[in-house]
């Protein structure tokens, strides 16, 4: 059993690793220009180059992959010779990066002319003071240029070269801003996906993790309720069909389940909206979230999304349960029980049920891949602010870091549940345990 779980963990890790390479490759390496996608196609080559340098997009793929995965602060520490620290400012709801000085004070730097370096100090109370530094801060690098390494005010570890007043381009809310005194090299600071920081969205300018957490919570609420509704319903109906094999109940349920699984999710959703929201005017056809408690104040908003998810999942699980029940009812030990003269219900509940439910329960858990497709569609149809609609919006706007993070969270959830299903199945079914 330990060996089995160990092997499963290995393949889980491999899946995640390959998935991360695949996601990263497609979004960042494959043709398709992140700068143009994020800033529009009217940017000049200088603006593009500046944007790429500031965001580390001019680096080789391997460096970018490593920074995306495990962060870049350790590389910055090597260059700066000092530890760096990320602090969260509750007021502006932004993260910022600082160099930790020998006395524990936090500093950032900037220069306006490439000659006078200005140090921004932040003490433990959060008070900011600026101080002009003398020319002695410029240190000769390996090639003999006088350079200074520090963290600039855009949270990038940067290398300034003395006397070279470079220009940088940044897109602010109003217009392009051209700043003098820009560094020559940048290391954009981030903690990395594995340490819970998937980067800052190019589109909104906010940390991705911020929106991700509430979205994950919302999706778990939706998927959790749907799961609680689907599970007993599908199992009960599947058992009903399986026990009445060949009768009209079975045929009706089997045909309906075939129709339900074959129908694309968006079609089921539109049909339900049309019937219950437009024609019968019974239920709201969209989810409108105005505050944190909206879901609890108007729970009827959730009925149609959950009904759609139920419809998508129900058919499949029902068919599996039915087949499993039919198979179990044909086994020898059930025949023995029947010949012994046990009552039908005693046979079903005391002998057949446990074995018949083994396959469907694992299948439901394994089926989470399918459910994720359903969740993306359902959340998009009903405007539900979950992870599914988040990944769709991010994909529409080509918000690279957001798509990467959301996709990886989904993949993690899916792979973990598959592992869970495997473990449950082995635990329920001793016959395959030691193979």
């Amino acid at each position, binding site marked *: 059993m330990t060996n089995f779980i160990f092997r499963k963990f290995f*393949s889980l890790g*491999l*899946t995640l*690793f*390959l*998935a991360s390479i*695949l*996601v990263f490759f*497609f*979004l960042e390496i*494959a*043709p*398709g220009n992140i700068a143009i996608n994020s800033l529009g196609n009217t940017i000049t080559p200088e603006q593009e180059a500046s944007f790429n340098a500031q965001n580390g997009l001019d680096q080789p793929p391997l460096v970018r992959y490593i920074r995306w995965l495990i962060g870049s602060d350790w590389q910055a520490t090597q260059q700066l010779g000092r530890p760096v620290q990320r602090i969260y400012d509750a007021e502006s709801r932004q993260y910022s990066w600082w160099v930790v000085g020998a006395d524990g004070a936090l500093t950032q730097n900037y220069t306006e002319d490439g000659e006078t370096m200005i140090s921004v100090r932040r003490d433990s109370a959060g008070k900011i003071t600026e101080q002009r530094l003398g020319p002695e801060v410029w240190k000769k690098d390996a090639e003999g240029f006088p350079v200074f390494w520090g963290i600039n005010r855009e949270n990038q570890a940067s290398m300034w070269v003395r006397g070279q007043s470079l220009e940088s381009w940044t897109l602010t809310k109003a217009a392009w801003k051209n700043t003098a005194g820009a560094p020559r090299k940048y290391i954009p600071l981030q903690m990395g996906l594995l340490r819970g920081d998937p980067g800052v969205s190019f589109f909104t300018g906010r940390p991705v993790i911020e929106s991700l957490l509430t979205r994950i919570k919302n999706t778990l609420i939706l998927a959790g309720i749907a799961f609680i509704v689907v599970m007993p319903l599908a199992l009960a109906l599947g058992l009903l069909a399986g026990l009445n094999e060949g009768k009209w109940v079975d045929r009706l349920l089997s045909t309906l389940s*075939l*129709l339900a699984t*074959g*129908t*694309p*999710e*968006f*079609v089921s959703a*539109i*049909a339900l*909206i*049309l019937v219950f*929201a*437009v024609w019968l005017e019974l239920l709201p*056809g*969209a989810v409108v979230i105005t505050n944190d408690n909206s879901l609890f104040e108007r729970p009827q908003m959730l009925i149609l999304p959950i009904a759609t998810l139920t419809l998508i999942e129900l058919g499949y699980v029902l068919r599996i349960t039915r087949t499993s029940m039919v198979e179990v009812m044909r086994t020898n030990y059930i025949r023995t029980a029947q010949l012994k003269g046990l009552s039908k219900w005693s046979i079903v509940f005391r002998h057949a049920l446990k074995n018949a439910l083994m396959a469907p329960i694992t299948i439901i858990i394994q089926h*989470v*891949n*399918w459910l*994720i*497709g359903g969740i*993306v*569609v359902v959340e*998009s*149809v009903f405007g539900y602010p979950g992870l599914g609609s988040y*990944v*769709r919006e*991010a*994909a*529409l706007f*080509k918000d*690279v870091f957001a*798509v990467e993070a959301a*996709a990886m969270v*989904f*993949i993690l959830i*899916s*792979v973990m549940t*598959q592992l869970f299903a495997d473990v449950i199945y082995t635990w329920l079914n001793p016959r395959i345990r030691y193979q």
Partner: protein
Amino acid sequence: MVNAQSVPFTRPARESKLRAALGNLIGSPAAVVGLALVLFWIIMALGADDLLVRPDCWAASSDCTTTPLLARYDAQQSFRGQVLKPPSAEHWIGTDRQARDIWARTVYGSRIVLLLAPISVIVALLVGGSLGLMAGYFGGWVDEVVMRILDAMIGIPSILLYLVILAALGPSPLTIVLAVTVTGAPGIAKLVRSLTLDIKTRDYIAAAQTRGESPWYIMFVEILPNARGPILIDAMLRMGYAVFAMGTLGFLGLGLPPPSPDWGSIVNAGRAQLLGGHPWGALAGSIATATLVLGLNLLADGLQEQLNRYR
């Protein structure tokens, strides 16, 4: 000479085999319904305009003017003052926001779906089939490496791969084919591998090996043709998934760029008017996608039954 002799023998044999196959297919009511649904859309696609009469129009050259036949109007034609009209004698299922005939768009949309879905499945078959054959036939570390990677890819929900690929490369027919290939190939490879492992043990493979045939000859000439039944059924199911996926992508706003009349995009465009009491666009695209997917699934079921009968 050889040809002249062999033709009289093979033709009747082939015809009777075909008739038997069709007869079996027609024997199953589900398969008949499936066939009817798929044929309906094939006829619509072929007969949308008189392209069949003027084949040079297949290349979509700009100087080619066609007369809409089954579609009645052109998919992009806008009718003045006919914005969001309900069904009428002129416009069978109404008009959309840009005053275009929804029926015409749906019919022309079938052409896109019925072209892209088979192409992407064929590409997926080529990639997945080759990988599966190699993994199954060579075994050893090739098998181990290929299967580990493919297992990992199967673990990724396909909708995410679609979204990632389309977000990265932008919506175009090529991207959609690529997305369906990337998501479909691992499944096909696993199927072909298991079939290969089974067929590899047969005597005629040993005979071919003794004859000194190259591994590639054995894989593609001896093994592949003998595994065609299950592969064909799987391909039919995958065609359904491809239609399903294309619809979903269009619906999510990631399908072919406007003014393409693919079904998902029709639904996506019609979705905004759904709550405003003009469901025709959303309904047309939805029903079209659902019927074609259902048709392909039923057809696959029918073929499966027939295959089981031969076993």
